[in-house]
């Protein structure tokens, strides 16, 4: 394993120092990333967080039109309640705070503990669980939260910026999650700095289907095939769970080690699939947004848009990782 790090123990802190140095729009305090300008009175505050290793998620989405604070944990380890409590208190502008939580046991437990412990702030929370690779049954921890987190953060962020009340922001955030589905495929495992070797071994001939964003092995292993066929597998999984129709927001997301060129190759296939189903790519994102360290592979996330959601998606956003309209 070769990584651009100083030590495995310091990687999260070192990367946050780099973020602080690169983005004067951010302030970092006690391992929480804030907008430099602080809370806006009357605006609902948005806090998210999770294990590190998914950059730009979440810290890269702190800024106008998106998050007010992000709580990065250690690599693949959800943040601790203290971070979330600090963030929640700090971003409250009097209108309450929405916690955007990816559905992992660790994230859920730590955000719940924080929400219970924080005082004098009205807290609502939305659970993101968009990964169709996981059966949503009593026999699992439920579906994972993956790419849709970006959609929820963007759209809820825009709504909060407009001054919508907490209940409304939470409701729309939940709606975005309900209308979104993801599926991911890995060509290689990631390597965590501490483990120092790939989390799983994947021969040159195989891929993992239905992976999450923490280097967990997927639901099954399959032979490596063309971009067209891999995109087809992901799209069939999504379409089988949520029939595609109408205007879609489509993200083809790299897992961190996959170059943009390959993601565009996948996007062409995804767009062709969408067209074949009579639906329409109305908005799109192609890039490394919700990553898994250095893993090679991709995920597709699709949200069924309506006019209101499209308008909120298009609203200005100004963060290190996502920016338009200002």
């Amino acid at each position, binding site marked *: 394993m070769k990584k651009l790090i100083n030590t495995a123990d310091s990687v999260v802190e070192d990367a946050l120092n780099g973020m602080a140095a690169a983005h004067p729009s951010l302030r970092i305090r006690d391992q929480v990333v804030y907008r430099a300008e602080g809370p806006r009175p009357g605006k609902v505050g948005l806090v998210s967080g999770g*294990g590190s290793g998914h950059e730009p998620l979440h810290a890269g989405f702190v800024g106008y039109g998106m998050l007010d604070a992000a709580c990065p*944990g*250690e*690599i*693949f*380890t*959800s*943040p*601790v*309640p*203290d971070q979330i409590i600090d963030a929640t208190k700090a971003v409250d502008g009097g209108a309450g705070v929405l916690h955007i939580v990816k559905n*992992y*046991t*660790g994230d859920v*437990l*730590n955000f719940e*503990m924080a929400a219970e412990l924080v005082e004098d702030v009205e807290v609502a929370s939305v659970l993101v669980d968009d990964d169709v*690779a*996981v*059966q949503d049954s*009593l*026999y*699992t*921890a439920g579906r*994972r939260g993956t790419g849709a987190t970006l959609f929820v953060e963007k759209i809820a962020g825009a709504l909060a910026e407009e001054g919508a009340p907490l209940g409304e922001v939470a409701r729309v955030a939940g709606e975005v999650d309900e209308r979104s589905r993801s599926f991911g495929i890995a060509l290689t495992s990631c390597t*965590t700095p*501490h*483990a120092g070797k790939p*989390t*799983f071994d994947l021969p040159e001939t195989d891929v993992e289907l239905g992976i*999450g964003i*923490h*280097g*967990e*092995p997927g*639901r*099954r292993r399959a032979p490596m095939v063309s971009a067209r066929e891999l995109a087809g597998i992901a799209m069939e999984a999504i379409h089988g769970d949520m029939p595609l129709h109408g205007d879609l927001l489509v993200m083809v997301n790299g897992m961190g080690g996959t170059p943009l060129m390959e993601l565009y190759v996948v996007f062409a296939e995804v767009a062709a699939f969408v067209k074949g189903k009579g639906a329409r790519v109305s908005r799109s994102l192609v890039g490394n947004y919700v990553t898994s360290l250095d893993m090679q592979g991709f995920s597709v996330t699709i949200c069924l848009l309506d006019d209101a959601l499209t308008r909120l998606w298009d609203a200005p956003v100004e963060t290190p990782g996502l920016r338009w309209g200002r």
Partner: protein
Amino acid sequence: MDTLDTACFVAWFEEAARLVRRDRDRLTELDAAIGDADHGTNLDRGLTEVIKALAESPPDTPVQVLTSAGATLIRRVGGASGPLYGSVFRQMGKALRAPVTLAGFSAAFEEGVVALERLGKAALGDKTMVDALAPASRALALAVRDGVGVREAFEQAARAAAEGAQATIPLQARKGRASYLGERSIGHEDPGAASAALFMAALATVAV
């Protein structure tokens, strides 16, 4: 001596920290197979902080040891195991009465395990740390019933935990990350159960 004093409790966590440090890579590898390869690192970081906190503000009572350890684990570990282990010890601390007899220890430990099950919504057989801790708690209760001495009671608890951890191997996970793998989780020891067995092994070595 039938009662467990503050030093015993401190020694428990010191020994647990030593065992987890020793087995850190093994725990992380177990987590790599069916999770996200951080359990050893997480727990090692947490227990290092626990020992540091205990050294910085030396506890006066067993309850203080447990309360400090539980709070530190919650405040420093993150992930699933931080709040879960933290809750075990925090709840155990709440339930513990001085002086600490084996029966008192057993009852408080059981409350810790119940808090864990409630927080994690996990039951025996879900392939989690519960699968090591619940049998250990039962072993303690049986030892109390049978009038066994502290040392032997703790050894029985350690054995029960180790067996419980081993017994997770053939199970399909229903909680935590491993549940995402469906049938592919079968055939691997649960990392949390493995670390729980270390906690109980540590207990056995510090028995008075």
